[in-house]
């Protein structure tokens, strides 16, 4: 049994290392400016934890396979200096890792969006996302709860007859954004907690009813992606998603104009 178990542990460790090394299953490619920081942080942590993982499993396998076969075990009740040294080393390593993630986190959340950022409102409901662009005036018209009506397509409760700022607002079901321009999303929910997650953007943020949560990012690669909900929101949770379309600036302008025309 000793051999079976230590062999199993060594084999399992080897398979795990190979699967990580060859990147058989891996992150989708990063398409945002802060994503590189996330990926670098993941890689660094993987390196450190990987070494600890392999070391611990192999020592365990060794102890099982090579235990004493005769005589008594060694009478050893511990070694305080060694224990303290290892605890300090572990603390330094782990805290170092946590601190090394500071810059990426600060870039995501401590610093606000740049002034030239394109601001878009996101309204989540069971089980869809709606997006609102402020239009040429750059102002979001006020929202009126009473007017919210999915059947007539008034997802944000706008009243263009009374509020001039609402007249040029553009509401879409697709989040279209220009490439290489800072985007600020204002996340709002109408019913329960939802979440905004685009794996390629390396962004995930819960959308909490009663709060407006801003996030910002810059997409660096054009293409069609998916926004998915990651916070359990009810029976349609698994199917709650919206398309994300990253376009070159001129294409984005055209796309937005087309959306405005269809309102």
């Amino acid at each position: 049994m000793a051999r079976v178990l230590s062999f199993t542990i060594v084999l399992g460790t080897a398979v795990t290392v190979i699967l990580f090394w060859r990147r058989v299953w891996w992150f989708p490619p990063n398409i945002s400016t802060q994503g590189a920081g996330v990926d670098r942080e993941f890689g660094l942590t993987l390196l450190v934890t990987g070494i600890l993982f392999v070391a611990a499993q192999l020592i365990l396998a060794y102890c099982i396979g090579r235990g004493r076969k005769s005589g008594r075990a060694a009478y050893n009740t511990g070694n305080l200096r060694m224990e303290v040294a290892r605890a300090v080393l572990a603390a330094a390593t782990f805290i170092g890792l946590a601190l090394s993630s500071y810059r990426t986190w600060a870039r995501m959340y401590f610093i606000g969006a740049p002034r030239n950022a394109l601001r878009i409102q996101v309204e989540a409901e069971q089980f869809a996302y709606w997006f609102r662009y402020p239009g040429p005036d750059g102002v979001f018209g006020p929202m009126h709860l009473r007017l919210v009506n999915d059947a007539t397509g008034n997802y944000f409760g706008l009243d263009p007859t009374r509020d001039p700022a609402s007249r040029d607002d553009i509401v879409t079901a697709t989040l279209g954004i220009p490439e290489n321009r800072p985007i600020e999303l204002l996340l709002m929910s109408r019913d329960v907690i939802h979440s905004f997650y685009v794996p390629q953007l390396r962004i995930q943020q819960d959308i909490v009813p009663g709060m407006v949560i801003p996030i910002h990012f810059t997409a660096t690669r054009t293409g069609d992606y998916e926004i998915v909900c990651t916070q359990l929101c009810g029976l349609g949770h698994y199917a709650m998603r919206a398309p994300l379309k990253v376009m070159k600036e001129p294409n984005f302008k055209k796309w937005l104009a087309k959306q405005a025309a269809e309102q």
Partner: protein
Amino acid sequence: MTPTHSQAIPRKAARGFLRKYVFSTDHQIIGKQYYFLALFSALVAMLLSWLMRVHLAWPRLAIPGLGELSAAGAPNGMMTPEYYLSLLTMHGTLMIFFVLTTAPQSGFGNCFLPAQIGADEMAFPRLNMLSFWLTFTSLGALLSSFWARGGPATSGWTAYPPLSGLGSITGPGEGWGQSLWIISIALFCVGSLLGALNFITTTLDLRARGMTLMRMPLTAWAWFVTAILMLLSFAVLLAACVLLMLDRAAGTSFFIPAGLIVSGQMIQGHQGGSPLLWEHLFWFFGHPEVYIAILPAMGLTSHLLSCFARKPVFGYRAMVWATIAIGFLGFLVWGHHMFVSGMNPYSAFAFSVLTVVIAVPSAVKTFNWLGTLWGGRLRLTTAMLFALGFVSIFVSGGLSGIFLAEPPVDVQLHATYFVVAHFHLVMGMAAMFGIFSGTYFWFPKMFGRMMNETLGKIHFILTFIGAYCVFMPMYFLGMAGNVRRYAQFVDPYLQPLMPLHRFITVAALGLGAAQMIFVFNLFGSLFGGEKAGENPWEATTLEWVAASAGKDLVVYRGAYEYAVPGKEKDYVMQNAPDASGSRAEKGARDGNAN
């Protein structure tokens, strides 16, 4: 009526079957009741996980028998998305509360905490009985929601409002099912609080002469610290449940914000509440709960590695302090469940640093387990195999916690299968390995017979390989952006991952099937096992002291005196008097000083 000299009364013989085995105040019977309650819950929860896994891998497959179980939840055996969420909620709740909290702490703890510290009963036996029956009622309330209108709750074991706070308008299962869930958890809280009170008092007051705190077995230490965690954290969960119930039933607005529109209907009467408040209260309980599940298994692993390596625990004091440190720090890190919740990002970073600090005592424990094994003479009993498996699985699950502790990395991995892999390995599987090793180890003491070792070894190797095959691939799923709690995978980007999902499902079916070997072995040995001796594992702690030694135990030494040079046998029991009188005297004095 009340004796003044109670050593004069023998323990009252229990009257009749009902008082002896059902409404018993005997800690051993209560421990076994908890154990079998947990075993039953684990089997139900495992069955639910099978149904979920099959549905995920083959969403169009009609599952035989499921249509009969719930006509609404699975018409013709085809699971609806809301029924999937019900099963998910029930699986999580059963496992976290009724298995991982119940078996290692209330089950084994009740059976062996008094025995290990040399007490012959818990401090409050009647309270103990009440704790069990509250837990039993709580389980009944939870399971009854399977037959409630709309089915069981669908909001997961975390029950975030407003989903859980508005009633059936947010979905079937959020009516009666969710109410029953809250009632069940509130009852469980009360039962656990009373149980914790009993454990702490017993440990503080009823230790045998000479049993100083620093001579207690690490299992007893783990039960003690776990009880403190339960005492403080379940009180907060109980308060949170009261608030949530008031929001649902009395129209208050603790967690429900103003101006909600659900399914096109405006929600009236609520104003200004905060869902984040629930998240804070819940995780203030939720994170210590993780340690409530794992600390007893950690203690047991230390205990067994020493016993079966025939070697003292490496760094006993460090182990004790690590346990205490985990217990203390466990209350300071709840925010790491909320990095993407909309919480203040500055406090998120503070939580991140505190979270990696809690990894240090866990690392110390792992070092010391390996240190205990190093140079040992291993006896690979099934109990020992599961303890070794625990170390391996704990490392594989625990290290991924470092990723999730770093906020920017968590942003990418939060709510994906990476997290599912992490907590199933480090808390679920590791604690299950603890429960298994405890069962194989203490079965002879609990039932007077030995379990079959051959079946045990087959069970171990299948469980060990199965656990890795089921949960390691989930790390890769999570890295690929596979979101958890999805009833089906309809997104195009998830389709390439389906083969991996099918592999996991097949492995899960195999892992579950292997548990039948355990059930068969358990019940088979219960009636047909080989009769056990007084101390079959040649262990040192007091639960293995022969009954003939009498009740008047005196403890002379620490719990892990294996391979002591110059001794006749390779182990010295805690109650074995020392040849030199001076040491015995010191021990007795220490015992009273505490």
